[in-house]
């Protein structure tokens, strides 16, 4: 019997159902927050799946691009890395896409790009109306999307970013964002309405204020969030910045988490927090239950990660277009991973040390995505500096974030077992 062909977005919707069921099986009341989050993401991906059929332009963006402008133009922005991350853990399709892509591009290209390329080559994902990516954080990102847009024939815009950070650089990026708006208007036949943009920015700012408060609460010992709850929030923060639904979710989460911290409650249901870990780079997205396993087996909570480290402040001045663009340019510079990986190594280590310090990390985990040359090329500098500044060890894991064939879950767990038995004994 021929397997029914499913589009990538249909696969993501199915993944979320499985994910929700698995998380609900972990515990009781404390998974209520996850239930809210899953509902939010379900709504969002349903919207994304229907967008083009309903005449709404679908924009693929990468994880550094602020989504607010797209929502303000009544487009649906889809962060491609989020889609890849939700296809990867469930079923064999991500691996099929990777294999398909490797017939046309080298295997050392980032598997995030390979999942997407493979999905395109196999026809499981239709072309977007536009694709927008910045020039950072890496060459895979820079090379693949520009080429893919030409190969599959859809409009593409690159937000160029200067390498070194400065006030002048922020103006440069703001200029690029304005050009991006003109590009979007031309390609979608829509005009950006300033009032709608201001409204979107108000929601974005409100959401971000709650996020920063939540982030502060998560510094508490014990951590009031479980590992999966922290990691699972990332897609929503990225994709839905500017939507009122995100404000509602974060407000409820904040109230719930504040109450937990006041009572000294942990986010773990069936184990006790013994170690606090920070994922300072990648993590095994192909097996999200690694994080639950760490909690149950070793009492180790992943209290934060590079990808969740949204430290920027809300955009202070949204009174006019120029000020909003400058504010979004500032935000773009500080988006997780783009900040750490796209500039000089000081940006990586400064953000990482600050994150490990404020979350009282017992160890840093460098989930070294094998295709990420720029981070492997500074891994030793980072590891040595963390030890020097914080006195904590860094566990180096060589893996592919989306492909378990590089390093399997079992192999990773064996490394963790060794690490806890030898280096991080308590």
């Amino acid at each position, binding site marked *: 019997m021929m397997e029914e062909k499913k589009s990538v977005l249909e696969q993501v919707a199915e993944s979320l159902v499985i994910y929700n069921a698995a998380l609900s099986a972990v515990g009781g009341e404390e998974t209520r927050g996850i239930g809210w989050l899953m509902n939010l993401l379900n709504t969002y991906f349903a919207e994304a799946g229907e967008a083009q059929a309903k005449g709404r332009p679908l924009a693929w963006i990468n994880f550094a691009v602020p989504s607010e402008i797209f929502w303000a133009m009544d487009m649906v922005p889809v962060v491609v890395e989020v889609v890849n991350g939700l296809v990867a853990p469930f079923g064999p399709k991500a691996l099929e896409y990777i294999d398909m892509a490797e017939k046309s591009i080298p295997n050392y290209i980032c598997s995030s790009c390979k999942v997407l390329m493979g999905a395109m080559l196999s026809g499981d994902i239709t072309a977007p109306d536009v694709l927008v990516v910045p020039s950072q954080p890496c060459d895979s990102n820079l090379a693949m999307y520009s080429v893919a847009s030409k*190969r599959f024939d859809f409009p593409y815009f690159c937000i160029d970013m200067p390498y070194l950070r400065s006030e002048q650089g922020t103006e440069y990026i703001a200029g690029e964002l304005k050009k991006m708006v003109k590009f979007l208007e031309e390609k979608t036949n829509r005009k950006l309405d300033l009032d709608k943009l201001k409204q979107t920015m108000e929601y974005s700012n409100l959401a971000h204020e709650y996020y920063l408060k939540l982030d502060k609460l998560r510094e508490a010992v014990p951590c009031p969030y479980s590992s999966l709850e922290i990691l699972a929030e990332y897609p929503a923060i990225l994709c839905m910045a500017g939507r009122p639904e995100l404000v509602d979710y974060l407000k409820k989460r904040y109230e719930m988490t504040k109450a937990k911290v006041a009572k000294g409650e942990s986010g773990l249901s069936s184990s006790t927090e013994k170690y606090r870990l920070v994922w300072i780079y990648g993590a095994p997205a192909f097996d999200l239950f690694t994080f639950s396993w760490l909690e149950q087996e070793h009492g180790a909570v992943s209290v934060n990660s590079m990808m969740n480290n949204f430290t920027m402040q809300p955009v202070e001045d949204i009174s006019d277009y120029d000020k909003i663009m400058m504010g979004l340019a500032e935000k773009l510079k500080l988006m997780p991973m783009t900040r750490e990986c796209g500039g000089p190594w000081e940006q990586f280590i400064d953000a990482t040390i600050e994150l490990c310090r404020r979350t009282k990390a017992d160890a840093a985990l460098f989930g070294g995505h094998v295709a990420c040359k720029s981070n492997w*090329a500074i891994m030793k500098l980072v590891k040595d500096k963390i030890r020097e500044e914080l006195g904590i060890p860094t566990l180096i894991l060589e893996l592919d974030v989306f492909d378990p064939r590089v390093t399997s879950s079992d192999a990773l767990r064996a490394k963790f077992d060794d690490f806890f038995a030898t280096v991080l004994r308590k």
Partner: protein
Amino acid sequence: MSTLEELTALSTNPVNPAINEWKAEGKKVVGFLCTYMPEEILYAADMLPIRLRAPNCTETTLADVHMSHLTCTFMRSCLQDVLEDKFTFLDGLVFTNSCDLVRRLYDNLREIRPSDFHFLHFITVPHKASEELVIWYKGELNAFAESIERAFSVKVTEAKLRQAIDVYNETRHLLRELYELRKSDSPPISGAETLSVILAGNSLPKDMYNHMLRKLLDELRQRKGISKYRARLMIAGSGGCDSPDYLGVMEELGGLVVTDSLCFGSRYFWEPVDTKGDLMLNLARSYLKRPSCPRMVDNVGERGEFVKQMVGDFKVDGVVFQRIKYCDLWGGQLLYTKKDLKESGIPLLSLEREYVMRDVGQLRTRVQAFLEKIER
């Protein structure tokens, strides 16, 4: 010794007698990693710019400790040579955000060898060539010139910059003339020899190099052409293709490399710099708008057109697209190039390689099969 032999000998080692003489005169030598750095600015400051290479590096054990094994061997080899003190003659190094590994080499050197180089500078090069970004790049180049002036107590004047551009334009013109000779049915120079000639120029004062190029062109016009070959080849792809031996393997098997799209080849010199008006702006525009590498994101199609133009002009039978392992920029370009050349009916051989030539047997097998498919 013929001029070709002289230039070939100079290409085998980045450190040569001309550099020693230059230093003996008390003048400075500054290294750079990528051809998006306008050498003219250094030349205008009476410095010798030389492009970093590590052709004699045989292993990268020291570099691997710092930059890991999961990175491009070109940059690791350069780091290896730095750690083995082979670049102690350099007074400075200039970096650009050409690719992830060039910028990480900059980070590593600043931390592990902070005192090795008197001058380290980083230039942000835009990834697009719109007029606004050309102006931004001009600002970066002005800042670069000011940085050199402060570090070395020199002055980069308009007159000296014009003179430098004139010298470099002469180099570009002479190399274009050299390539014109390769269009013939019996080119007087092989691909391996041509690459040696270009590599020699990477570490010679350009006025001396221009003198040698003029002599070379005279000699080549008298030289008997190469008429026995199986197919005319074009080499395209990654930076770090600086090994004449690599081309030599193809040519031993009967291929004749008649042109290229390489940054150690045609892309380095294809377009002259305008000398009318604002010179720094002209440099910025010229370096951004010339035949590009995939770091320039809006030029995917233009890179394809450049290859096809070369194929037509040089009567190429097949394109060899080589890329260094872990080079994402050229690895990504392959997705478009494969389809583009197939639709244009141009045979393509895609090869992955390391910077240091290994697996010659495998290379020979692949090239042999390709030549059998396309030979005249």
